[in-house]
């Protein structure tokens, strides 16, 4: 009895296998996953060639920013103001190349909350300027610090460079707040930077698993969250009104300076996202990892990495067409801005769904028996 059943089952399996193998032309010939699927090498590359050098370059800009704002507060003139503003712009652009690394130490201190949550809370900033003490760690203080606060402090506090410089010359409160904002940025980033230069680098590289707490999972989570929420929605979607139905140009990044900077920040961020995906030629990257896994669309056999790159290319073109001034574009050519959002959304989905799925990483800690 048992033997007959067993035999029947085995036969059934064998027959099914043979039938379906006959139907599948590339079942046997596909190159399988190989030893190139090496997460340790990938994490090492990210740590030593992307995160640490990126943070180092940003640190340089932050040091320069501090020097120029100190010079400005020491002697507030239109000339020192322009120099401080240029240092702020340079640092803001450089920030776009590291904001996506919100994992590990950066996640711990909520680096982004201290650096780039906009629109700036102008009323709150003004209130702080008149206050004796304020706490940059409370939730309400998030839009009162970082680059958006500096945007307001250096560009929006009065109209014209002469008036702005005059404001600082006449008000100790303004000088102190500007100094404190920069000092807070320096301090917060300093803890992140020193951890990466210290023991965290090895912790990161050594956590080679794929569960929810692994380095790969944390990176991918931060990467797709950044693309979806802070690039797609924050820089374009929300100002273009895709979330609320009404264009809100006053919600763009670098609102007080306007001009070409907001779009430059957005395209820099987009380029960073694509470069992070592709890495350097011949070095481990998400692209090479996906290719080593053999990830492809099983309907068309196109490599997933190519599909993602093509979409990122389309998305970049659409985004860079929003110039010269993003502030006017989101209202004047709203359809173009919405189209840019939509192209980014397509890329976000490929990264959040197709890539994450192919990587086999876990996103929650809760038990799961297979979707």
């Amino acid at each position, binding site marked *: 009895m048992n033997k007959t059943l067993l035999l029947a089952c085995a036969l059934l399996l064998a027959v099914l*296998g043979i039938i*379906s193998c006959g139907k599948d032309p590339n079942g046997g010939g*596909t190159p399988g996953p190989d030893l190139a699927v090496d997460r340790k090498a990938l994490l090492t590359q990210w740590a030593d060639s992307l995160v640490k050098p990126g943070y180092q370059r940003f640190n340089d800009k932050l040091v320069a920013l501090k020097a120029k704002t100190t010079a400005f507060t020491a002697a507030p003139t239109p000339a020192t103001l322009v120099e401080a503003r240029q240092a702020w712009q340079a640092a803001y652009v450089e920030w776009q190349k590291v904001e996506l690394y919100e994992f590990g130490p950066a996640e711990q201190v909520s680096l982004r909350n201290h650096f780039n949550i906009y629109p700036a809370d102008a009323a709150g900033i003004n209130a702080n300027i008149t206050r004796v003490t304020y706490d940059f760690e409370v939730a309400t203080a998030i839009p009162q610090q970082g680059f958006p606060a500096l945007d307001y402090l250096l560009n929006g506090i009065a109209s014209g460079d002469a008036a702005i410089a005059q404001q600082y010359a006449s008000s100790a409160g303004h000088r102190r707040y500007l100094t404190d904002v920069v000092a807070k940025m320096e301090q917060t980033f300093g803890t992140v930077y020193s951890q990466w230069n210290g023991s965290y680098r090895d912790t990161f590289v050594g956590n080679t698993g794929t569960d929810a707490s692994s380095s790969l999972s944390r990176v991918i989570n931060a990467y797709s969250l950044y693309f979806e929420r802070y690039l797609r929605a924050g820089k374009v979607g929300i100002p273009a009104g895709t*979330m609320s139905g009404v264009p809100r140009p006053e919600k763009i990044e670098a609102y007080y300076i306007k001009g070409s900077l907001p779009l430059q920040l957005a395209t820099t961020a987009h380029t960073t996202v694509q470069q992070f995906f592709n890495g350097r030629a011949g070095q481990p990257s998400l692209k090479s990892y996906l290719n080593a896994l053999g990830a492809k669309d*099983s309907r068309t056999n196109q490599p997933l990495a190519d599909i993602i790159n093509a979409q990122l290319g389309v998305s970049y073109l659409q985004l860079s067409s929003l110039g010269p001034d993003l502030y006017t574009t989101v209202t004047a050519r709203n359809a173009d801005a919405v189209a840019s959002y939509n192209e980014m959304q397509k890329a976000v989905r490929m990264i959040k769904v197709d890539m994450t799925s192919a990587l086999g990483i876990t*996103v929650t800690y809760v038990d799961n*028996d*297979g979707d």
Partner: protein
Amino acid sequence: MAGRTLQRYLHSLTLAAPLATFRVAFGLLVLASVVRFWAKGWIAELYLQPKFFFSYYGFGWVRPLGPYTYALFAVCGLCALLVALGYWYRAAIAGLFLSFTYIELMDKSTYLNHYYFVSLVALLLMVLPAGRYFSLDARLNPARWRNEVPRWAVDALRLLMGIVYCYAGLAKLNSDWLVHAMPLRIWLPAKNDLPLIGPLLGQLWVAYAFSWFGALYDLTVPFFLLNRRTRPWAYVTVVVFHVLTAVLFPIGMFPYVMMVAALIFFPADWHERLLQRLRRLLRLAPATDQVPVPLVYGPATRQLLLLGLGAFFVVQLLLPFRYLLYPHELFWTEEGYRFSWRVMLMEKMGQVQFKVVDSQTKRAQLVNNYEHLSVLQEKMMSTQPDMMVQFAHYLRDYYARRGVHSPQVYADAYVSLNGRLGKSFIDPTVDLARITDDLRPKPWILPFDDEITGL
């Protein structure tokens, strides 16, 4: 002739020991499950923090109890302990079944096949005489003590185990699993940093070997466990198989539940020896006078029990096949997917963007799912159409309260299944606010544009 064999079978007796060890082990495992769940902070994360819960069809009234949810888990754990001790057994097992099932029904995003299995076993144990031997009840009230029970009472548990394994095996007989080694060819390389077996897991042939062995194992292991000669080896494979799945996949208590439950296939005297050892370990009086005291049901009770069990198993045999009543690919639509022992069959991921439109002003706004749902809920919803409808109804009511005129809710969903590039999942022009949430086929699920052959 067959009728007489059946009658003889239904009247035959066996030692009560297998039911007793099963009861003890089951009670302790559920207790451990509850403690683990609590310790990981999942009660708050899954049942207190979310603002919205995905109830099962017809069970909308089952909701988390706020802070009293902790009490519910405490009751469940206490009942599990009492079941293990065999103290107030009937009340305890009924309490366990009700509290555990209530917990599982609170939110379908936490659905796991082994939770369903625990509920079913508890239901069975409510009617099986598992509290008559090696229990506090029998010790305190020796008149209730029985050391022999009808054989069918033990076999009912074996049959349930057999169904779980065989149906899990049948579900693997499809082209994705056998021909493409999906989803194991995605999941295994992700574990290639494990010691010893890691380097192997990156090899494609290993994914195929695991797939085929897994299917063969599920389909045949109950039969090997039934056979006296193959049983020890079969149990070794049970342990190896489930330990491997515990190492490779985040499936929680499932492997341990199955490893322990499979002991029911061992013969009655093996269980008796196990209990003897346990008595010695616990310094209990050894059972000396083993005069057979069989449990004999009155004819009416017996009839009722057997009919009930029969109905239970007919449902168990048919329920997993209900997917045949739906027209499209099961893995894609998931219509009739749950409660069918389909375990670890799909790598499915999705993203869904909801849009709420004011039907008077036509103003549209997009929804941030994370403002309303937990990470787990959002992940589960983004691939399951019935949950999308439920969430759409929640959004309809939510935005209506905030002044949107009879809100229309549209969803733009993108889903990838077993390595296929993601595609649009549901019709983005269908107003989900007006779709009723029921068990009928959902015509607004877009075509899969591919084929998975097999069962």
